[in-house]
């Protein structure tokens, strides 16, 4: 099989790259095992939330101060500014509505009731402009009876600290009883499947409405709208009070939906999406990648002019650690990080301190072309969190790096 570009990895980064290329007429394929970091999506994309332990208000003002190894520094501020303009329209063309702006971070309310700075939030989710003041006084934090993955008390605690008066309540719906009977089925994606039925959603709306008279806002787990992006509009129209959704323990309903919509957009543009497949081997010819072999396609060669590695970090198996080294498993690319192969240096003994292993990633040149044995591979680009050079947890920059490096690489490939 022959393509213009083959992208390895179907997470946020791979999909954005594929869409951007396909929109410009390139024949692309994405090889993906299926799940990605989007499956535990918070509902918001971060650009740069923290730097040097301090909260960032204007990401563009801080990006130029980042160290040279940071993917943003490798891109350069001008390229970042150019690509930032493309993000919202691209998402919009995929049917994904977001609010927020790169000039100034807004805040999202986390599943334990904390405010965190972020860049773009899905339209279903509430955007807070002030992290220390809530627009409401009386808040009803509602849950479905027996749903353990939504931490109502923790959220109420956070809201109370911000001056709200919280009421906690849980209710059940007949339609959920069958999944409740199985001890491990009450998880957000299963519940969301039940709420794909419009009549059941209408019942849920009625239940929620019972609390609207006595409260200024309803907080509820994000457990509907798995395949229906417009479900939230119904809720808003009928509840008539602000409804603040919060993601539950993964799988994330909004994340699965976002991934599906990006995938659909990619396929509508003519992209080939090889779901459930993984790359076995990358075969080189000279200083170029010639073809890939995958598990599902046996000895059929996957050939392309350019390749993009968007395989994610450790939990996506884009990087692998054994007791002796951290390596890139498909091509054996050069991996660099803040320390050497002595595994004792990979971690800090305090879990909540900066963890050096998180900054490991594949070495590239300034155009994000991969390096192997110190030499640049001319037709292999690297995007997203397999890049390293940053700490997505301490800096809240994971989504931004995934999206922007992909767009940049797509432009490189097209021009």
């Amino acid at each position, binding site marked *: 099989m022959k393509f213009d570009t083959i992208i390895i990895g179907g997470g946020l980064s791979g999909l954005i790259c594929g869409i951007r290329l396909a929109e410009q007429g390139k024949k692309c394929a994405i090889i993906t095992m299926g799940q990605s970091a989007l499956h535990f999506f918070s509902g918001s994309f971060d650009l740069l939330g923290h730097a040097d332990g301090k909260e960032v208000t204007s990401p563009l003002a801080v990006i130029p101060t980042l160290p040279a190894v940071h993917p943003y520094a490798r891109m350069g501020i001008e390229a970042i500014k150019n690509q930032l303009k493309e993000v919202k329209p691209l998402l919009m063309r995929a049917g994904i509505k977001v609010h927020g702006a790169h000039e100034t971070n807004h805040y999202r309310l986390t599943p334990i009731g904390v405010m965190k700075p972020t860049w773009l939030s899905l339209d279903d989710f509430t955007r807070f402009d002030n992290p220390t003041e809530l627009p409401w006084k009386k808040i009803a934090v509602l849950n479905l009876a027996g749903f*353990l993955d939504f931490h109502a008390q*923790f959220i109420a605690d956070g809201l109370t600290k911000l001056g709200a008066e919280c009421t906690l309540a849980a209710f059940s719906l007949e339609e959920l009883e069958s999944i409740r009977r199985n*001890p491990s089925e009450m998880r957000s994606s299963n519940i969301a499947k039940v709420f794909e039925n419009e009549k059941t959603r209408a019942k849920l709306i009625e239940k929620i409405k019972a609390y609207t008279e006595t409260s200024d806002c309803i907080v509820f787990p994000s457990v509907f709208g798995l395949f229906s992006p417009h479900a939230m509009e119904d809720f808003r129209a009928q509840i008539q009070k602000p409804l603040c959704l919060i993601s539950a323990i993964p799988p994330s309903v909004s994340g699965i939906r976002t991934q599906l919509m990006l995938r659909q957009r990619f396929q509508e543009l003519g992209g080939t999406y090889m779901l459930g497949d993984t790359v076995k081997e990358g075969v080189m010819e000279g200083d170029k990648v010639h073809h890939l072999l995958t598990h599902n396609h046996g000895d059929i060669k996957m050939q392309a002019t350019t390749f993009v590695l968007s395989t994610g970090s450790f939990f996506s198996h884009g990087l692998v*650690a054994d007791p002796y080294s951290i390596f890139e498993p498909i091509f054996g690319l050069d991996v660099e990080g803040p320390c050497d192969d002595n595994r004792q240096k990979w971690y800090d003994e305090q*879990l909540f301190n900066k963890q050096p292993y*998180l900054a490991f990633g594949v070495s590239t040149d300034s155009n994000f072309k991969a390096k192997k044995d110190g030499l640049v591979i001319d037709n292999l680009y690297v995007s997203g969190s397999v890049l390293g050079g940053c700490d*997505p947890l301490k800096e809240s920059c994971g989504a931004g790096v995934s999206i922007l490096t992909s767009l940049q690489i797509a432009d490189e490939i097209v021009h």
Partner: protein
Amino acid sequence: MSEEKRKEYDVIIIGGGVTGTGTARDCAMRGLKVLLVERFDFATGATGRNHGLLHSGSRYAVTDNESARECIKENKVLRKIASHCVDVNDGLFVTLPEDDLNFQSIFVEACLKADIKAEVIDPKLARLLEPSVNPHLIGAVRVPDGSVDPFRLTMANALDAKRHGADLLTQNEVLEIIKDKASVVGIKVIDHYTGQKNSYYGAITVNAGGIWGHHIAEMAGINVNMFPAKGSLLIFGHRINKMVLNRCRKPADADILVPGDTISVIGTTSSRVPYDEIDHMSVTKEEVDLLIREGEKLAPSLATTRVLRAYAGVRPLVAADNDPTGRNISRGIVLLDHEKRDGVSGFITITGGKLMTYRLMAEWTTDLIGKKLNNHKKCKTDKKPLPGSDKDDPKVKELTAKIYSGHSMALKNAERRHGSLTGHIPMGDNYDDSLVCECEGVSVGEVRYAIKELHVKGLVDLRRRTRLGMGTCQGELCGCRAASFLCQQHGGASKAKDDLANFLQERWKGMYPVAWGETLNEIQFTSWIYEGIYGLHALNN
């Protein structure tokens, strides 16, 4: 902080390990009024930091036949009184090509002398009985080894002590041993949860602090010469072996592989550590490498099995009184009557020994207390089953019926953990039956029962009672679910969030020495959720 004098006891026991709780049980069963204080939680010291091996005694047969004899006796007792804490899997002592096969006959002879059934079997049969064993073995001996869950065993002793009227205080640390002239008359403690300091008075105070007993004795002005010996172990992500695997040679590093519940444990190393480091044990890279290297020789599949955690315990070894160098160290039971030894009355130290002989240690201690307090009741701890192993419990029948009509995996798991007490777990409706921890099958009902009945003050305690968070995800998803149940216990959600952060840190402590492969992937996922998405901090949430 206010200070008040509380009621008086016959016996005050310091230390909530298996020896302390065992002694509390024995004393309470003989009608004594008992208080037990523990600075953290039950089984947090050496009790919970070993192989969990139900020794047959074979390991000591050649080097210390008397210990071996004690072991096999207690092994037989525990099978009866603690049936819900033990797994009777048997063990193999295997000879590998690099070992001396001549040792086998010496070993078998010593076992038989100690009354341990040791049977030489064909290596081919050994491979059939235990497929995980190194296929190149040249000799095998079958012995009555097994596994024992030390957390369960300790809790069962604590529960029985409570049933017989003992007061149990966890999170209460001794600040001072109160003396009246040359007599110990009580203790002053601080409650770590409330910050309150209290004094308690008792006729006899028992120092059952394990390695920390050195410090407790010091508080009474007494020197007990202890030598901390660190032993490190690794837990593997699933149960590789059915039988306990030992090397048939003189005891050395990493030569026992013990199956337990859902996992296997390899250990141990052995090294002296300075006394001031005993609260900060961590497993070194060299120890991890050695354990894997040696472990692979017993069961080659260890090489490709995920290492879940690493941990280390400190054995309380005691030097003979007249030997300050520590060369003459005993691994046997050490019972010190400080009245005789140091002229300090009302104070007893019980230390040394092993998990296997805890009951015997408790018996000896209680006999000595009885002599001093003129209580001549006989020890019955070897006859009366522990709570959980009591087949006469009226709830057992009902429970058995439920389990064998069998739909709930949580119920089956709970039965393994709580034995005949499982009937006390709320179950049967959708809420109580739903799973908090999917890896280990811990239900809402079990969590509620543990919080209510089993002295649970935080998530780490809950883990020891239920195995919540001990599975392959290491608390990644169940941590937050369970934390919500503890809001009331902590007096608020903020503290419960801090407790969650502390629980994750505690899980990480056992993961970082083996942080590669799936273990590193798992912790990245955990950090991503809790720090990235949730915005949880180490403190002040």
